[in-house]
């Protein structure tokens, strides 16, 4: 029954093994991360000085659009799915994912979706240029012809995410080892279970909104066109009904990863496990009733404005509970700061800063000044880069010895961390300043008073980019060889994944393990 992988390329094409598929997801997302990162560097290079130097405005807009789409749908989401594939079966004592063939399918349609999206750059009229939020009518009546391909690629990505989520839910609900009750599951499994439900609820809404765009463009309907009785603002409501849960989709699994790492390196159990679960669930619930805080300036009746302001502020409570829990886990622990812990601690600090600016943005009258400025750009990069990217990086360093059987190079890991940490803050912190001082987002050129901080931000961006090369090098070296890792890898870590040998065999838990 236990047979190994097929040789050669077929192994990857036909595989139904959760570890193979997890690895492919992770490598794919890293490739997309580098691609989206290069686009960010084009943006930052153009913004290094006032004036147009490197690219023209139309191409600049294509870069901001593609950077956003690729980072959200190509880098962050597949990386979390990759970690879920690798870790969830091993964390709950399952032999594999519940629906292995669908697992293969949900990965392999992704490269086609992104190849199609990327190819729009070479089409007549260029790639989509209306921002990753693609507000109508800029994305319908005024869009380049390549928009149709953009819509199809979104459909494929949506299908992939929905299949991936169904698989994860089925695995968690049906494949747990005997004795692994829901309230015994590691938080990473919990956060992913909730995320998967969010995905199934909102990815179809995204598919719906792009379908409506498609109909408006090609079939003469007018969902978003006032002339035919539609309304461009309807687009924003439907989009953000998807979009707000989407930002939690990109952060909830990160909470899970950090909740695994901090206890290990504090050598102390996670504080408030059950309140962590409830907090995650309430954040997920609240995410459905706050969407219009992205649209405070769109012109809403005051009652609507107040409702969305209060609901948004409320999110600070469960999010605060999480941060307090992590800090209390660290408090009176016996801490050591290996690379995964460094990234996890940076996550807590920087994500909290992003949370503070989020709270400021929630205040509707103040948001009238912040909205669509670099303050917003600073805010969501502070929650996404240290939030999603740092936690994924922390997770990779944390579990890499388990995956490969080799220890990564600790010095290089620390160099990576400090370069990334400094680069990130130098890039995004000044954006708060230029935003408050009045610089709108998505502009290829700016007034002279914004020049100094933009120059600093651009330099930070290149430093942050360089740090990722260290990461790539470190991971490749660890895959090729290096110091052998023990089965436990760390100091008495918690979780079933540490009970299997390092590297984890091709098939694990063919017979279910005993849970406590």
């Amino acid at each position, binding site marked *: 029954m236990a047979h190994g992988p097929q040789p050669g390329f077929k192994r990857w094409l036909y595989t139904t093994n959760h570890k193979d598929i997890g690895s492919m997801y992770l490598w794919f997302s890293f490739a997309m991360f580098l691609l989206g990162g290069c686009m960010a560097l084009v943006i930052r290079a153009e913004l290094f000085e006032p004036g147009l130097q490197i690219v023209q405005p139309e191409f600049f807009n294509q870069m901001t659009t593609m950077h956003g789409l690729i980072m959200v749908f190509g880098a962050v989401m597949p990386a979390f799915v990759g970690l879920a594939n690798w870790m969830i079966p091993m964390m709950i004592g399952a032999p594999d994912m519940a629906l292995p063939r669908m697992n293969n399918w949900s990965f392999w349609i992704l490269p086609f979706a992104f190849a199609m999206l990327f190819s729009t750059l070479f089409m007549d009229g260029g790639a989509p240029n209306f921002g990753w939020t693609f507000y109508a009518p800029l994305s319908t009546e005024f869009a380049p012809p390549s928009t149709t391909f953009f819509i199809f690629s979104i459909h494929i990505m949506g299908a992939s995410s929905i299949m991936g989520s169904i698989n994860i839910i089925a695995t968690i609900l049906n494949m747990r080892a005997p004795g692994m009750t829901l309230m015994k599951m590691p938080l990473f499994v919990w956060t992913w279970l909730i995320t998967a439900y969010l995905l199934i609820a909102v990815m179809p809404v995204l598919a719906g909104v792009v379908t409506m765009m498609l109909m408006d463009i090609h079939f003469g309907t007018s969902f978003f066109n006032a002339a035919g009785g539609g309304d461009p603002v309807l687009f924003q409501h439907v989009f953000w009904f998807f979009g707000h849960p989407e930002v939690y989709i990109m952060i909830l699994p990160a909470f899970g990863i950090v909740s695994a790492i901090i206890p290990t390196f504090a050598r102390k*159990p996670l504080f408030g496990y059950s309140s962590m679960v409830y907090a995650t669930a309430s954040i997920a619930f609240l995410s459905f009733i706050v969407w219009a805080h992205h649209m405070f300036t769109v012109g809403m009746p005051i009652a609507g404005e107040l409702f969305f302001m209060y609901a948004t502020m409320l999110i600070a409570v469960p999010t605060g509970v999480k941060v307090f829990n992590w800090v209390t886990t660290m408090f009176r622990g016996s801490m050591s700061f290996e690379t995964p812990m460094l990234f996890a601690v940076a996550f807590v600090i920087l994500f909290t800063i992003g949370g503070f600016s989020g709270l400021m943005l929630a205040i509707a009258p103040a948001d009238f000044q912040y909205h669509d400025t670099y303050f917003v750009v600073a805010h969501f990069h502070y929650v996404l880069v240290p939030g999603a990217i740092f936690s994924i990086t922390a997770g990779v360093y944390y579990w890499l010895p388990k995956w490969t059987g080799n220890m990564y190079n600790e010095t290089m890991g620390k160099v990576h961390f400090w370069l990334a940490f400094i680069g990130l803050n130098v890039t995004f912190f000044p954006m708060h300043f230029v935003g408050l001082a009045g610089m709108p987002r998505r502009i290829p050129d700016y007034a002279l008073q914004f020049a*100094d901080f933009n120059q600093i931000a651009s330099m930070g961006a290149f430093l942050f980019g360089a740090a990722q090369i260290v990461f790539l090098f470190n991971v490749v070296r660890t895959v090729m060889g290096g110091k052998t890792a023990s089965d436990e890898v760390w100091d008495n870590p918690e979780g079933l994944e540490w009970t299997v040998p390092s590297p984890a065999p091709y098939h694990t838990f063919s017979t279910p393990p005993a849970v406590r």
Partner: protein
Amino acid sequence: MLRGFNRLFALLTTSVLAHSALAEEQGAERWGVNMTQGVTEVAQTTYSLHMLIFWICVAIGVVVFGVMFYSMWRHRKSKGYRAAQFHESTAVELVWTIVPTIILILMAIPATKTLYDIYDTEEADLDIMITGYQWKWKYDYLGSDVSFFSNLSTPRTQISNQQPKSEHYLLEVDEPLVVPVNQKIRFLITANDVIHAWWVPDLAVKKDAIPGFINESWTRIDEPGIYRGQCAELCGKDHGFMPIVVKAVPEAEYAAWLGERAATAAKMRELTGKTFTFDELLAQGEKVYNRTCAACHQPNGQGVPGVFPAIAGSKVATGPLDGHLSMVIRGSQKNPAMQAFGEQLSEVDLAAVITYQRNAFGNDMGDTVQPIDILNFKNKQ
């Protein structure tokens, strides 16, 4: 010795003063890190609200990060600190759920008050309709005949770095919005094509301009001055190049300005009857072209392949005159990016720019279009 020191000191102070005066003259406040306090009551309230929340966040941050850094410093394995094993405390968890909730309620009270203020658009002294276009603003003073477009006036050569950048680079327009101080001005905001957003930080007014729908907002400016802003919603290629300039003047000056504008409009109508020479039209046409057409069709008339057609050798610009007039005055039937300029430009400017396009970039039609031809075309059955 002492005298020498004094002289040095005097030299230093004057040079510092001169330097700061220079910086002030340059206008642009560099290294700005915070929101403007603005020049209206609403802007000031917004600013204090912003600072209040900021300091609350700082205070929370100091406590949370303080505890965290303390334990990172003290509770380390390398120092031999042994881990405690507690992992639950209902009392503590209750406290840090309830206390933040109370803080949030305290924050919500002033925010709600300010919001009610901002929404009170009643009893305005003056109504101005603002329409966003790709990529300019149109201002209509309701109840008077005064209506004009406001375009970016920074020359293309500055943007492409062939010329040094001026003081208000990208924040200057050919025609600012002139308003009186100490009067409640109501803005009715809409758009012609895609969604824009009208934003002037000093007034703390930011409102989306949505095609087909109107939004309203208001301001009452306390002190005369020039206040600059930008479009705040991605609206296509030149989103970064459609600034807003508001010139607030004393009431008497405003009345004089409005009268003058009405007179200019009348004079423009008169000019429409005049016949211009070919060279006059070319010279004026070049100016209009660079201001209005060059953003898409490019200063060299070559356009952008696949996006914006070239003027040089184009079928329209070297074809029958009626087709060219129709294209410029009514816009393209196929491509929404080519707007109808009939109402945006004066008859004189339309005549000049069409003459220019037919006789520049290697086009050599040799014909002249007079303002009266434009008027006739517009009125033609």
